[in-house]
């Protein structure tokens, strides 16, 4: 599956706006992403495994609220930075 990376996180992905990832759940996707791009998970997910306040995650256009969501190889995941301008 592919994951869209917002600009504030592209310092972790060497500038790539879309990266491949593996996993059967969103949690596994972020574990593999963090293995490939160390540190990226903690900027998105808190130590209590909750999605940070100004981050939104969409799977195939549907917003998800937690990491236990199952995902399939052909899914598309969007990470969006939202609601924190100024």
């Amino acid at each position, binding site marked *: 599956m592919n994951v869209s990376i917002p600009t504030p996180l592209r310092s972790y992905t060497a500038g790539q706006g879309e990266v491949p990832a593996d996993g059967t759940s969103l949690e596994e996707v972020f574990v593999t992403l963090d293995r490939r791009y160390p540190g990226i998970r903690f900027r998105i997910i808190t130590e*209590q495994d909750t999605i940070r306040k100004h981050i939104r995650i969409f799977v195939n256009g549907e917003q998800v609220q937690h990491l236990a969501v199952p995902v399939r190889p052909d899914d598309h995941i969007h990470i969006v930075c939202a609601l*924190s301008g100024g």
Partner: protein
Amino acid sequence: MPRSTKATSPQPATGSVALLIGTRKGAFIFRGDRTRRTWKLSAPIFLGHIVHHLVLDPRDRRTILMAARTGHLGPTVFRSTDFGKTWKEATKPPAFLKVPEGQQGRAVDHVFWLTPGHPSEPGVWYAGTSPQGLFRSIDGGVTWKPFSYINDDPQYREWMGSVQDGTPDGPKLHSILIDPRDPAHLYFAMSGGGVHESVDGGRTWTTIVQGLEVVEGFDAATITFHDPHCVRLCPTNPDRLYQQNHCGIYRIDRPSNQWIRIGKNMPKQVGDIGFPMVLHPRDPNTVWVFPMDGSTVWPRVSPGGKPAAYVTRNGGKTWTRQDKGFPRANAWWTVKRQTMTADAHEPLGLYFGTTSGEVWASRTGGTSWTCLARHLPEIYSVEVAELTR
């Protein structure tokens, strides 16, 4: 309080000085020459990041740690080992322990305070966070772990209060202090939540709030209500601490546990409310404050729009106004707790930043002031880096 040996009195510094400036929109390094007359501002570092604190490791004079986050992304610590030329992120930033499923755990919102460890403990750093947490690194800031038991202790959690009990952008653990005579003798403070001391390297802590006042109508026996804004320990007399509190300016001389409100000696029309507290590196009787209007709705700007530092040279018995060079009126400055500091030269240099993005300096211990920079983002911290002695 078993210590009896005196800390050594350092000689004045003579080398060049740099200012490490954290702002709401990135960090800057302001390099001065030996005379401290000529300054050069760096390009923004991590432009757009919210930088709460930027601190040089005085043990090697090259390593800088930066407490940063962005409006969207979680908190982290960046580390430079070449005085800001290149940066690497901590591989394990400060984070609370994960709680079992079904329980309400805390998440670090931002790292607020950084303190280098004792000279005998190279690589040790401490961090204070919002919500209040105490963390330590033993590898120069690469990895961090919760330090001591306080982050999850029921009594401390009660004293820390909820997010609503803290400062507007979150309750903070700050003023992590290390006795230069003993690396196991530590202090920290919480806004709100009082001042705390350990003499056994963080295994146990004692609360020191006697003599401190709280907001009118509240019970001073309730630790949560105590709001120290900035606590400093005298380098040459570590038994003496000064504190700028939400409710006044205080001094304590250990082993006494009694804070004395030395701010009562400030001019009544100015008051003794503010954020920073700056100590002389060699004279434990000399300290500076930068008063803020603490009346009515707590404007927290220079009283009357007329900014001034105040200095005492006798431990708080008398205070002298220092405003030469400042605007005479209509200057509604706010100077936050980490934004005023001193170098170690003779005469001593003082520096501070405002929330309106100005950096001011005095090469004469505050007797006259010059504006070094305008139009920076909102300034969150100013720290001196003595590049050589």
